[in-house]
């Protein structure tokens, strides 16, 4: 790597053009948000939190065959205060709902929520039951939905990669929303 020397002792000065060139080749300019987003998207800490069948698949995803650790996501935290992603994996009952809401409140910002399986998305096969909340998005801001009953581990990994995109490029998502809004205006 070349060393930038603005004022050399032998009087051999670099002109502005050369300095520009050196900076362009050696310095990466970014915003703090983007840098933090890159870090955050690559090491998501998940709160260990299984509700029903999907939790077993979540466990399976971290096992040898699917090896979640390849993507840097194998850390499961027991406490919500140390985690930044909540995977709602399973049926939410009316008795459990206030506790899930409290867990979400206890998580530190920034935080994300992933809905795993049809129960967490909409109540799934139990949607007409008297004791089942029809979906986590009735009381939580959900970022990613992973459909399936239960989803295969590959689907969960795909969900994680989607979440990574969302954390790293939040504009992509907002951009889509804006575009959709424009389409809506056209009609």
């Amino acid at each position, binding site marked *: 790597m070349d060393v930038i020397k603005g004022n050399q002792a032998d009087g051999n000065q670099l002109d502005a053009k050369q300095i520009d060139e050196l900076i362009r080749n050696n310095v990466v300019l970014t915003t703090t948000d983007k840098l933090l987003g890159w870090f955050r998207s690559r090491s998501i800490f998940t709160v*260990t939190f*299984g509700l*029903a069948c999907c939790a*077993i698949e979540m466990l399976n995803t971290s096992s040898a065959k699917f090896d979640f650790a390849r993507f840097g996501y194998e850390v499961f935290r027991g406490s919500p205060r140390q985690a930044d992603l909540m995977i709602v994996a399973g049926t939410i009952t009316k008795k*459990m709902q206030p506790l899930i809401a409290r867990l979400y409140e206890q998580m530190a910002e920034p935080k994300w929520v992933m809905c795993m399986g049809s129960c967490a998305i909409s109540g799934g096969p139990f949607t007409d039951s008297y004791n089942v909340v029809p979906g986590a998005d009735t009381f939580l801001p959900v970022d990613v939905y992973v459909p399936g009953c239960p989803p295969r581990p590959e689907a969960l990994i795909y969900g994680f990669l989607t979440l990574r995109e969302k954390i790293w490029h939040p504009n992509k998502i907002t951009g889509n929303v804006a575009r959709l809004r424009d389409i809506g205006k056209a009609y």
Partner: protein
Amino acid sequence: MLKTQELTLNMGPVHPSTHGVYRCVLTLDGEYVRNAVNHIGYLHRGLEKLAESRTYSQFIPYTDRLDYCSGLANELAYVMAVEKLMGITEEIPERAQYLRVICAELQRLASHGIFVGSFALDTAGMTAFFYAFRERDRVLELITRIGGNRLTPNYMRIGGVARDLEEDFFKELKQLMDDYDAAIDEYDGILTGNEIFQSRTKGVSIVSKEMALDYGFTGPNLRASGVDYDMRRDEPYGIYDRFKFEVPIGETGDTFDRYVLRVKEMRESVKIIKQALEQIPEGPVMAKVPKVIKPPVGEVFHCIENPKGHLGFHIVSDGSTKPYRTRIYSPTFVMLSAFPEMAKGTHIMDAVLILASIDIVLGEVDR
């Protein structure tokens, strides 16, 4: 004399080792459990009520989600109960019977696999978890080929099974069964023979024969306490009387026995599947059942040896297409009631292990 004070500790419903959303309020004296109180119902989905608004066939996928570690076995219990109610137990084709046995035993391997894995995790043995899940994943891949989903296959039908399985499947199954004994040897090597593991589990929470019977233990936990009773052998349902297998019995009924017994049972399941693969005949896989299932007025109770214990369905029919009442007898709900007495007086780190050794699944406990 040092004065001590009792401490109330809330474990769950969100806790890594409660195996779901079970909650327990422990009263501690120092590090020892003085009292434990069960709180359940965090996963109560109202399955029994839902059954009343579903037709008999529509309820089969719901049974998968009861004890989600052993979907095919639950389906088997339910369809056998309905068949008994309709009086067509004798009409099930031979091939379907064999396929059912293969499915149920495969599911037992998967369920005990998850027991070994999570039990190892609760003793802080991460490596054994990976070993146990490696074979379990192979079993699950086969179950995917049976029904299209890993945990919830929805393969059993009232009167047989959904479809015949291809030659390829049997070849792969045979290969897996040949490999399985070596895999179980590995579990034995890494866990059963492990000195640290033994000192954590041996002599912890001994359940006597009398206590096990009093609390209504069934399945592996009952046999671990020394009661020689297995429904597959003593009251054979389906075609289980055609297979030769041993029923392992525990000696003392401690946590270690409950673990070892399940590992031994896996070996027996492999034996049963091997025999079934040799004996399986060609033929149809579905009996002639009417499209709309309308059992006669009456009621029936049928109970099978699930991986976790006796799973029973009590169905009351009023002659219509939907059951008037479906009651699910779940083994782990019954066995969980013994947890306070099993945990009393033990060390707090053992309480987690005792809970794991009962092998609860909250989907079935709360229904």
